């Protein structure tokens, strides 16, 4: 029976999104979205608990056997990613209840939520599918809907941001497609497992390596790995709050998931070790950490600051992958989860600030932390997680990352991680300083109608979502069983495929 549940993850948003698009009422569209995200959350939980012991759930779409048909092969990594995506979707949905009516044009409610559901559909699809072309299609479904979502931001810069994201994202996707084409030309198959098992028969072909490089470039663009991150700060900085929350926590993560799949399941590890890829990734990761943190520190606008910090956090994940040992990969996979939680929380904080003040410029928020102590406290908590203070989720990942690096004797990585943390202190402190310690000045409030009471109080649903996120940062920093066991089981599975011929 559980096999049928897996496909429901994709089918439910697929069926409900077109219905949602027809409605103009905010309430109805929201309820439909809530149903979709809640169902996905429950389903991914069930699936994850099914496969966490290392088993698989296999689903053949349309009853066609692989490698002819499309096959969904769910192991703990798939299920874990699906869980992250749907959990963040739930949080964003809660947040959307009061945030969307304020930020989105009232004629577009239905379309907005439909696009959100489609984006969720695409991301879940990527997480589940075992067919690499099908993966491309889902990648594009999620990307296209995210371009549309980002363009719904309030300032006109959202449009240009969405446009450049569209250009770069499409180039990335096309590169990926070219790579898949080369691989297909060599292997004659599109099924990841099938390609992997027969890899040795065509490993020597030039096509395979060319395809590999194209796939890597494409995914690097989609995952915003340094130095291919240039679209990210603008896109997340100008998107509507809900979209920033959802995408920052999931979109790049899912692309990184694909990267992990390609590196560990599609291509044998020895193959790309010979290409010096671990070293390259390691350097990119380290530079990304420092560069991203440094640029974050330079920013004067909260959402852009957070976006640059995402670039740095992606660097940590890449470092973990490139370490190629159990601790490193555990850290990476856990950081997918932890960073999703942290960044969602921080963007929710930024969203509340935006909701109440219509600005996220740090200079215009001077001293505003005192007027919203609880929101501010949640932001600080998530900020501490970003730094990696013990007791928060950030610490756990950094811990495993460090122990992975130390085990390999890569001291340069240790230095990079510590430098990144120090810079993280600097940019988190910058937020705190601006919002709290700088003396309050007359707020410049823009675009507020007379009688608008938004400034008075953070709405309940927004605060609720924010504090769920903040509590998550703390809870999963103390009780790490769920992410740790999943990550552990994933790391074991990924590294064991390396040993297998």
């Amino acid at each position: 029976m559980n096999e049928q549940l897996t496909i429901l993850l994709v089918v439910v948003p697929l069926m409900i999104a077109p219905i949602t698009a027809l409605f103009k009422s905010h309430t109805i569209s929201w309820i439909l979205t809530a149903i979709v995200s809640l169902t996905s959350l429950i389903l991914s939980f069930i699936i994850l608990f099914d496969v966490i012991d290392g088993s698989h759930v296999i689903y053949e779409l349309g009853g066609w056997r692989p490698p002819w048909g499309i096959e969904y092969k769910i192991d703990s990594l798939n299920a874990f990613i699906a869980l992250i995506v749907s959990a963040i979707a739930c949080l964003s949905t809660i947040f959307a209840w009061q945030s969307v009516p304020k930020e989105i044009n009232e004629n577009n409610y239905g379309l907005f939520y439909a696009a959100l559901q489609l984006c969720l559909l695409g991301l879940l699809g990527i997480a589940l599918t075992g067919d690499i072309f099908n993966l491309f299609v889902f990648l594009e479904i999620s990307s296209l809907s995210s371009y549309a979502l980002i363009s719904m931001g309030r300032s006109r810069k959202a449009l240009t941001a969405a446009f450049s994201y569209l250009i770069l994202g499409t180039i990335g996707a096309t590169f990926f497609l070219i790579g898949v084409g080369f691989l297909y030309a060599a292997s004659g198959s599109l099924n990841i497992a099938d390609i992997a098992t027969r890899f040795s028969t065509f490993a020597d072909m030039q096509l395979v390596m060319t395809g590999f490089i194209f796939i890597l470039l494409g995914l690097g663009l989609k995952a915003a790995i340094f130095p291919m991150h240039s679209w990210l700060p603008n896109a997340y900085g100008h998107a509507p709050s809900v979209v920033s929350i959802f995408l920052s926590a999931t979109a790049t993560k899912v692309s990184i998931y694909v990267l992990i799949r390609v590196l560990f399941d599609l291509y044998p590890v020895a193959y790309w070790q010979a290409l010096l890829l671990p070293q390259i990734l390691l350097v990119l990761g380290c530079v990304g950490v420092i560069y991203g943190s440094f640029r974050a520190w330079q920013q004067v606008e909260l959402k852009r600051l957070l976006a640059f910090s995402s670039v740095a956090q992606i660097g940590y994940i890449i470092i973990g992958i490139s370490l190629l040992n159990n601790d490193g990969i555990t850290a990476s996979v856990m950081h997918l989860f932890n960073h999703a939680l942290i960044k969602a929380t921080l963007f929710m904080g930024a969203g509340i600030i935006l909701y109440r003040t219509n600005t996220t410029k740090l200079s215009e928020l001077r001293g505003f932390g005192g007027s919203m102590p609880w929101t501010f406290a949640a932001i600080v908590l998530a900020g501490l997680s970003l730094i990696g203070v013990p007791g928060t989720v950030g610490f756990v990942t950094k811990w495993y990352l460090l122990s992975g690096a130390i085990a390999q004797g890569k001291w340069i990585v240790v230095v990079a991680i510590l430098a990144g943390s120090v810079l993280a202190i600097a940019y988190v402190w910058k937020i705190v300083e601006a919002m709290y310690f700088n003396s309050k000045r007359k707020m410049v409030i823009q675009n507020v109608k007379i009688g608008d009471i938004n400034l008075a109080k953070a709405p309940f649903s927004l605060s609720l979502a924010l504090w769920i996120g903040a509590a998550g940062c703390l809870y999963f920093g103390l009780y790490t069983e769920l992410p740790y066991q999943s990550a552990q089981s994933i790391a074991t599975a990924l590294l064991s495929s390396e040993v297998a011929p």
Partner: protein
Amino acid sequence: MIPLTYWLMAAMLTPLLGALVISRLDKFPDYREAVTLVTASILFGINVYLFNHLDAASSAQFTLAEPIEGLAISFVLNQFGLMFALIASGLWIATSIYAIGYMRAHHEKNQTRFFTLFAVAIAGVMAVAFSENLFTLFIFYEFLTVSTYPLVTHAGTREAKRGGRKYILILMGTSILFFLPAMIWVYYLADTLTFTSDGILAGHADLKWVLPLLLMFILGISKAGVMPFHKWLPAAMVAPTPVSALLHAVAVVKAGVFSLVKVVVFIFGTDFITESGANQILLWFPIITIVLASLIALSKDNLKERLAYSTISQLSYIVLGALLATQQAVIGAGMHIAMHAFGKIALFFAAGAILVTMHKKLVSDLNGMGRAMPLTFTVFTIGTLSIIGIPLFGGMWSKWYLLSGALGFAQNAVLYWTVLGALTLSTLLNVYYLLSIPVRAFFFTNPNYTVIKEAPKACLIGMAIPTFVTLYLFFDPSIFYGLSLSLTGS
């Protein structure tokens, strides 16, 4: 018969529960303060119970969470921790009584927030005291910083915020920059962080690593106020006096030296440190701090700031004692945590009482005030004498052990004489900058102060408690001596 573990849990939960109740009682100030007092008394009672049942100590332990395998947040009943818990909870009672008088007389705003966070901070202190390992200690060390921050900036003025900024920046910054990496390093070397009576590093770490590691701890645990990261303490004096009194003479600063002593004794082990010789270099930190802070205190006219620098100087006595790493010195360090706490809190109480009744902050304004506030200045005098270490007051004993510990220090002759010189010099300076205050108050005359105008009654009661304890401790220091003895491994 309730297992001791539950009592241990109760020690941490009681203040939290109290905080919860207090925060709901905004409309009923009388009940609110009653709850504070009751909570404080219950907590003290729990600690006394734990003290009486210390024999079964090994069984009282529990784990809250284990985020990383081998790194648990767990608590254990231990003698040294219990000493700290006893001091903090006992003085919480005194402070609560005092605060009732002070806060009302001073018409402070947001008193509910004040009492709530105070209780939360105490919960943090309990957690620090009963930490089973360095990881737990670190987490609650940070927790203490964050939870006391709103207390420091209680006034909400620009000045308060500026002080608070320094407070949080120095305390959190150093702990993350130095303390945390040092802790990770220790774990990497020893594969554990559990406090063990002979230290955990011996045999795991090369001797050459002791110096940088210990240096990182000294810099990282800036709550101990060792120079150069001491500025947060004077900055924190913008807080209301009860906060300065309990948190910055007892809870927070003592959490700092407590952590440092724990690290020195239970992570490194005194023998290991002596063997490495690292302390011969690091001793200069407390020595310089003791002398310099005394000198700075001398130059401060603001009473609370002068007390703050005096605290910095006194804290370094404890650090000095730990770093001397001889048996007597370590016992002295442990005892000084207690003795200084009672003496200094009395001084702060008196300073607050002066502020709230006479609205004077400067030492130079105190001339002749002893006529108007004889009780307050008596308390002040007793506190001063205890801190200087004059017989008849508890403070004498810790200095006694510290000195005899210093006399037993045989590693380095230059250092030996320097330590003795510094201790003597600072005692003399103590006499000068602290004792001059009651002298001014009692022996100078000032026509403004002829009628007796004492502080509010609650303040006086609060002040009386530590004063009497100071006197009592001279005659019977055995409680704290016994608890400090655990530091020597016996």
